[in-house]
């Protein structure tokens, strides 16, 4: 680590960066500690926010340092300040949307007394996922080598050996994880136990990902979506107050065991990938890890900061054209393609993208490339409001057991999540997204109207919104 920032007298700038990052991280920690339900719902975003901030701060303070991916020196600067401010806007919008008084309103509506019927949807969902998982494992065994044992990268395995079910899992896996999380937590809304069989299914999917060469990012993505419904349930419990049944009572040991197993799985996967598959060792291993952990998450933001804030070199119409009208590959995240074209020699950028790779980041870079240093914050605020409102709707659907709407909101949630973490905006102009949105809207209105007819006055006026405990919920 150099002390160039100190030597050049920019101590104030460094302090500014550090302060911005510390405030942001402290807010996230406060959410996790004081409002763990919210922390679980937004773990996917808070974790990535923190990682990117630390990376950007490292570049700010340790720069100039060499970036392997960009093949140039980056830093120092105060680039942590604007990205931290962007994150504050999102966190502020989320905290406002999920303010306690609003959460109280979630429980005002009386729940429908759902029960096991002739056709249990949880049964149906369970056996459908079991069938898919079995077929997935059979496909893995019959189609070729198992990447973990063959020392193969996941991005080499998928085009060469990945079957249709494997590809479907990679496309829809996080959404499947969310649904598994919903079914896992749904019985607790009726004071039942967790639907552990869905957790087992989820664990089997993680094991599959481990075998096909996935490392940290997939486990993080799938797990974040799986715990979202659990966080929503926890929010509901917190709102009900101290009299509510502790969601995790009697499960602490199981949670600790599952968490330990998960951490071990990630550590083994990362270690195996770096040490065996890629064969890094010694100083090279440390260099690769420091690039991966401390540089790559923040380097694209630093490039945007340098371009937009320092040089004033941005063109919203060109960015919009490249993002929406003529991206390099319309079926993938055009934001990162555009940022790579801006930050790298064009041939190199196209070579990397052509091989299916893309760098980390994208949000809020895309908003500042579109709107410039001032308009970028306006766009960030607008998108933060939309995102927070939508997340509240999702949590509302889970807590109020509007599971049909929740199911159809999942693809929209996934698109929004990918936007917040990777800045993908071209998915919003796809016809398929418009159809998903329209279907979700129709389903929401249908379920809302129909339920409002079912909830009768005597139930609504009941002092305890929770009905009597019933056997395991079937949704």
């Amino acid at each position, binding site marked *: 680590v150099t002390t160039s920032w100190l030597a050049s007298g920019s101590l104030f700038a460094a302090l500014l960066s550090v302060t911005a990052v510390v405030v942001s991280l402290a807010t996230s920690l406060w959410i996790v500690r004081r409002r763990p339900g919210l922390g679980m719902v937004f773990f996917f975003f808070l974790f990535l926010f923190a990682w990117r901030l630390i990376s950007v701060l490292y570049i700010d303070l340790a720069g100039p340092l060499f970036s392997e991916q960009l093949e140039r020196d980056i830093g120092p600067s105060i680039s942590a300040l604007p990205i931290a401010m962007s994150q504050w806007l999102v966190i502020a919008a989320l905290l406002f949307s999920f303010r306690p008084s609003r959460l109280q309103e979630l429980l005002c509506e009386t729940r*429908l*007394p*759902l*029960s*096991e*019927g*002739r*056709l*249990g*949807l*949880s049964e149906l969902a369970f056996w459908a996922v079991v069938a898919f998982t079995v077929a997935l494992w059979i496909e893995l065994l019959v189609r070729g080598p198992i990447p973990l044992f063959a020392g193969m990268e996941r991005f080499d395995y998928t085009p060469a050996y990945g079957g249709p079910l494997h590809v479907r899992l990679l496309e829809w896996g996080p959404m499947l994880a969310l649904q598994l999380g919903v079914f896992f937590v749904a019985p607790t809304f009726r004071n039942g136990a967790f639907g552990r069989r869905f957790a087992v299914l989820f664990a089997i999917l993680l094991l599959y990902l481990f075998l096909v060469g996935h490392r940290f990012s997939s486990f993080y993505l799938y797990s974040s979506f799986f715990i979202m419904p659990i966080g929503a349930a926890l929010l509901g419990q917190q709102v009900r107050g101290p009299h509510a049944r502790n969601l995790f009572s009697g499960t602490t040991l199981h949670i600790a065991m599952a968490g330990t197993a998960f951490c071990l799985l990630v550590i083994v996967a990362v270690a195996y990938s770096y040490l065996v598959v890629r064969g890094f060792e010694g100083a090279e291993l440390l260099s690769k890890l420091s690039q991966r952990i401390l540089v790559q998450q923040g380097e694209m933001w630093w490039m945007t900061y340098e371009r937009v804030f320092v040089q004033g070199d941005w*063109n919203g*119409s*060109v960015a919009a*054209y*490249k993002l929406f009208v*003529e991206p390099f590959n319309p079926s993938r995240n055009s934001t990162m393609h555009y940022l790579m*074209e801006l930050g790298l020699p*064009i*041939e190199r950028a196209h070579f990397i993208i052509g091989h299916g790779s893309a760098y980390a980041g994208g949000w809020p870079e895309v908003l500042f490339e579109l709107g410039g240093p001032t308009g970028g914050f306006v766009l960030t605020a607008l998108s933060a409001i939309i995102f927070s409102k939508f997340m509240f709707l999702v949590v509302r659907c889970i807590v109020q057991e509007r599971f*049909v709407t929740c199911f159809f909101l999942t693809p929209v949630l996934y698109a929004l999540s990918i936007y917040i973490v990777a800045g993908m905006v071209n998915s919003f102009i796809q016809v398929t997204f418009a159809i998903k949105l*329209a279907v979700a*809207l*129709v389903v929401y*209105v*249908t*379920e809302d*109207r*129909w*339920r*409002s*007819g*079912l*909830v*009768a006055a*005597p*139930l609504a006026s009941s002092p305890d919104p929770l009905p009597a405990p*019933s056997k395991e919920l*079937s*949704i």
Partner: protein
Amino acid sequence: MSVEQGPISADQYVGGLLMFFYRAVRRNLLLVIILPVVVAALAFAIARQFPPVYGAQASIRLGRFDGAELMSLQSAVARINSPTFKQRALQAMNLPVVGKDRAAQLVAGSLTARSETSDMVAVTVNAPTVQQVRQALDVTVQLLNEEQDRIRQPLMADINEQLANIDANIVSLSQARDSLSAAAKAIEAQPADPASAGFRTVWLLDLASRNEQRLTIAKAERHAMVARLGSWKTYPTTLLDGTFLSPRVVSVSSARIAIVAGLAMLLACILYALMREPRGGHRKLAGTD
């Protein structure tokens, strides 16, 4: 009311939901069918009235002088995308820079460049007619060449001056060669002291040899200078495959507009039908039990 307080099974829940949707749509079936069809037909008819928009993407190879680029790729892209360049392009096309002229708005709004390879720029432009699309691309090339001429012309003048000097030198040396040749012949023709004639002949031959060397060097210099201006090292900015460029209709087709309008209306009608449906799902649910 008793059914409201009893537990609802999942199949009843989903079934009731579907029935509610079915009832709402069935009750407003005419509205849900006719209105989207009418709106789609109207949209189709209106969309047919809109004049088409033509567009094309062309590759422009940036000019070079003596193998060196006169304008970097990034500069060319930035220039074409800049508002001032677009204004100049409109002026060159005899289109109003201000106002609401459709052609001017289309060209200014769509003229976009991006880097394609290390020396080629991909330019996209839309215009109301095929001719205007071609003209916009030609004007883009012309303006780029004009900007590059500011760098190219001094360099060209310098090389031309050097060429003129070399040519003059070659002429001078050629004349000297002829003079020396004539002098040598004159010595041979004059009867004189053989020793003196021999010395003078040797001296003249030495002069002729050195003159020839300088002439050869001068010609080599000229060749190298001309090579710097050769078509493989020095060329203007050009539109590649310009003659084969065929602008196509890029405006959204009337059918597509009609489908989108119809679907949007269908969505609105379904939502309207759902909102109008009385909240009485529980009564129907009772019947299914």
